[in-house]
């Protein structure tokens, strides 16, 4: 999980970039729900979902390589999914020289297809929306504003804290310390402890700075213009299409 996080935002000025963030966020979630609700045997439906995403990626001018490289985050579950045909229960089928579980094959396909489509949708959302705008969008979708505020502070100070962690590592290594095995734990833990203290103290200073500029408990909301209906229609169209596909697939199956 803690494999490095890539900055997913790809600056651009496409119609997708210009859509209001709350609409895009809602669309991404709705699309993911449609994908998850699609019965796994409807292979054509998954092809349709992929085509929808490809269309959005094309309009947003997100290169396929960008998408594929960042889907590497999925890898642990890919491994799990690939193991299923081998360790799965139930009747076996012969595939070439291998005897695989049929149920396992279907389950592996199910997980792989849905997880991949889900990740791709998330990547497209993040690639076309600046991080803080995604949080603004979450707030407009009625996610509790205190939670969103906490997320905004986390986002703002993440780089600062990571920078402090990096500097501590450089300081350690400059004094000849290399972490090779468990005996390094006390030294590393001391760094983690120091990081907590610095983070906490900074939190207190930020609070004082907020008070000094008149903060009385609720962050002022500055930009609450509702998104125009046309924007919602545009943003939700791939999600609606996916929902239709999923519904058809369920009916047919």
């Amino acid at each position, binding site marked *: 999980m803690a494999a490095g996080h890539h900055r997913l935002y790809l600056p651009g000025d496409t119609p997708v970039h210009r859509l209001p963030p709350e609409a895009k966020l809602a669309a991404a979630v709705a699309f993911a729900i449609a994908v998850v609700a699609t019965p796994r045997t409807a292979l054509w439906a998954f092809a349709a979902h992929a085509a929808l995403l490809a269309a959005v990626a094309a309009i947003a001018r997100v290169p396929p390589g960008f998408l594929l490289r960042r889907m590497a985050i999925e890898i642990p579950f890919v491994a799990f999914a690939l193991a299923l045909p081998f360790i799965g229960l139930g009747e076996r089928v012969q595939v070439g020289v291998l005897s695989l579980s049929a149920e396992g094959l279907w389950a592996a396909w199910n997980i792989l297809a849905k997880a991949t489509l889900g990740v791709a949708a998330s990547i497209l959302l993040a690639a076309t929306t600046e*991080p*803080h705008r995604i*949080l603004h969008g979450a707030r407009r979708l009625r996610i509790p504003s205190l939670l969103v505020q906490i997320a*905004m*502070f986390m*986002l*703002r*100070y993440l*780089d*600062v804290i990571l920078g402090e962690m990096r500097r501590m590592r450089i300081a350690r290594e400059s004094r000849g310390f290399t972490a090779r095995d468990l005996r390094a734990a006390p030294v590393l833990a001391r760094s983690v402890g120091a990081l907590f203290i610095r983070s906490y103290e*900074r939190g207190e*200073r*930020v609070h*004082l*700075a*907020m*008070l*000094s*500029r*008149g*903060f*009385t408990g609720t962050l*002022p909301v*500055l930009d609450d213009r509702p998104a125009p209906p046309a924007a919602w229609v545009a943003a939700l169209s791939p999600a609606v299409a996916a929902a239709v596909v999923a519904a058809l697939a369920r009916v047919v199956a």
Partner: protein
Amino acid sequence: MGDAAAERETTAAEPSLRVRDLAYAYPDGTQALFGVNLTIERGERVALLGPNGAGKTTLVMHLNGILTPGHGEVVVAGLPVRKDTLREVRRRVGLVFQDPDDQLFMPTVREDVAFGPANMGVRGEELERRVRHALERVGMLDAIDRPPHHLSFGQRRRVAVATVLAMEPEILVLDEPSSNLDPASRRELAEILRGLDVTVLMVTHDLPYALELCERSLILSGGVIVADGPTREILADAELLAAHRLELPFGFTVPEAAPAPDLHAR
């Protein structure tokens, strides 16, 4: 209308800041301030000098009510600092902290500069105007939509000043404004500060900076004001400086014949 004009007149005549007999002890019992007295008139630029641990930052935190004195009072442009006046006090006293990262806590520069006036109830076009005006005064208007962590340290310092200017304060209080700035940024900041028509109180170790920008200096040492006078005289008094752990930088001598800094230079 007549009342408001009268009110403005009285406050215009009031000193920007008056601190009377201020004493304070930390929660663990250590006393930090032992009766501070100072008065700063409107339009002055004053430097607050002193050794580390003298209580300069502690004093500064009393000016906008973050700390409450154990004894004495702080009056900002005629308004005493009390629990019920905090909101207006925090508009009048623009406190710029030493670490700009603590002060730029919103996702973009625009939102940071708007935070202060928005808390005062300013909205819409007036808010936009204030934000742009504040950023113009510090020369950072083109950074308005950028996240703070994409800016250099000097740029963040300037934006931090803008966040406070947007509240149209009576007095600008800066804690070590020139620390960690490269020479060019130092100069840029000095130009900006010189161009503002607001009262300035600057806590600093940077004696040449104090001389360059502030015609008057105070020395806070041992929790009281031990010196109050023209910066030039104070810096020329080597004994006084030495007694309070202040030193001029190597090779720096107070220029004798330089003209007095122009209070209203633009």
